[in-house]
């Protein structure tokens, strides 16, 4: 059974009807990339899954409908969320950001987190607001990895980062996502192809492609049509 199954998802943000018919599913292991041009509603899809935007249609986590469930109860089903723009708590220290993410009743994988991100281990008392962009991204990912989650929703983890930092974030994600289902929003097709085995493309608020990542990345015409990018 899929970890996450979305059918006919419709979301309005204010007056704007952003999503009108997104369908996708995320299998229990591996990374599914959620792709599409800027502003097609990728972030909106993740926000709807987390219960942070009102939605209609169907969003099932492990077969159970979650539309209408409060966000904290959705997260407690074992969903880790790494939002666009990181959203670390800037006034809290690194250690406090992680402590806040500790979910009661499960093991907290500090060993894993500090092994992946030694940078965080060496500065527990630094306010998160004074971290570099790359370190903030690591903290945002660490927050989601701390609990053993069923599903990770990761929104543009490489956005605005220097190429060398992108590499280390990708490396950490490869290791971190080996045993968890992931829905990854990524603008950078190279990063998406590196991490994901499956891809879903949305365009004008609807799913237009669902299938193999390699097929998509290997077909310049297809990728160009849906993503507006040139593929090497």
């Amino acid at each position, binding site marked *: 059974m899929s970890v996450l199954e979305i059918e006919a998802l419709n979301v309005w943000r204010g007056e704007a009807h952003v999503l009108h018919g997104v369908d996708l599913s995320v299998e229990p292991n591996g990374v599914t990339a959620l792709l599409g041009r800027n502003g097609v509603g990728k972030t909106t899809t993740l926000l709807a899954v*987390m219960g*942070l935007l009102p939605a209609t249609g169907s969003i099932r986590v492990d077969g159970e409908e979650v539309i209408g469930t*409060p*966000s*904290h109860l959705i*997260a*407690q089903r074992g969903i880790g*969320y790494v*939002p666009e723009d990181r*959203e670390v*708590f*800037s*006034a*809290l220290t690194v250690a*406090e950001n992680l*402590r*806040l*993410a500790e*979910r009661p009743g499960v093991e907290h994988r500090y060993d894993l987190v500090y092994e992946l991100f030694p940078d965080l281990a060496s500065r527990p008392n630094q306010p998160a607001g004074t971290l570099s962009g790359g370190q903030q991204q690591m903290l945002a990912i660490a*927050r989601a990895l701390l*609990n053993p989650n069923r599903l990770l929703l990761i929104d543009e983890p490489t956005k605005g980062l220097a190429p060398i930092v992108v590499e280390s974030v990708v490396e950490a994600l490869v290791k971190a996502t080996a045993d968890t289902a992931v829905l990854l929003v990524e603008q950078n097709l190279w990063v998406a192809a590196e991490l994901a085995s499956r891809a879903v493309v949305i365009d004008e608020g609807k799913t237009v492609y669902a299938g193999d990542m390699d097929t998509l990345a290997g077909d310049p015409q297809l990728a160009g049509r849906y993503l507006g990018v040139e593929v090497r």
Partner: protein
Amino acid sequence: MSSFVLYTITGLGLAGLYFLLASGLSLIFGLMSVLNLAHGAFFAAGGFAAWWVMDSVTFLSPGPRFLVAIGAAALVGTVTGALVERGLIRRLYGKHVEQILLTIGLGMAAVALMGGWFGYDPRLLTQPGWFTDTTEIAGANIPNSRLLILGVAVLLLVGLMLFLSRTRHGLIIRAGVENPAMVQALGIDVARSFTIVFALGGALAGVGGALGAVYFNGISPSLGTAQLIFAFIVVVIGGLGSVPGTALAAALVALTQVYVNNYVATGLGSISVVILLALVLLIRPQGLLGKAAP
């Protein structure tokens, strides 16, 4: 020199009252974006609870009785705060106009209710004799009640800072002031913290009311409402959601008020505070220790 010391300690005592009223307002606004215009009612309710204890619990000698009075004021503030959040405000999160109408109405209804019960004239608080004695500090004779108010306020400031920095609830509140949706997305029920913050704000304001009844020589239903405007100025100057900022701003506002009233002209103190507010808004619109809006 001795009058300067007296004015300073008097000013700091007033700062303590402003802090107790403003810190709850600041946390409530910071976490829930609710402008609680009924907060003055918590202050007055605490004052009347203290007055009632001092008037009725006569089998205790005045010293211990005052401790009970402070506890009763805190309890009344806590319960009122929690009930207001659970019963009324909870339905109106995100609806700012409705919140303002509700809290204004609630504040007015509370004044009328207390007026009907206790009357509108100030009720004098029975005070332990020690309060009206004086202690000599740097040549000035300071009424002990001023020192007491200052001491309790500092104690509560330290306690509040410890609560916010050392407990999980405190951690959730500090994170929630920044980004409640993200706290929720981490699997934490932020709404529980909303009730806790209202209860905490009510408790602090309630204690403020008990001490205010000493400072202002009596408690009347509208005393809290009268102080609320200064508390709002303190919140804005200090920076929304910042407890240390609120403490600093409370001292700044109260000292300005007392110095100007005594050294320049009586009655100019309140106006000078408004000028201070305007200056801070021009130079540092996010407040002294607040974060700039993104």
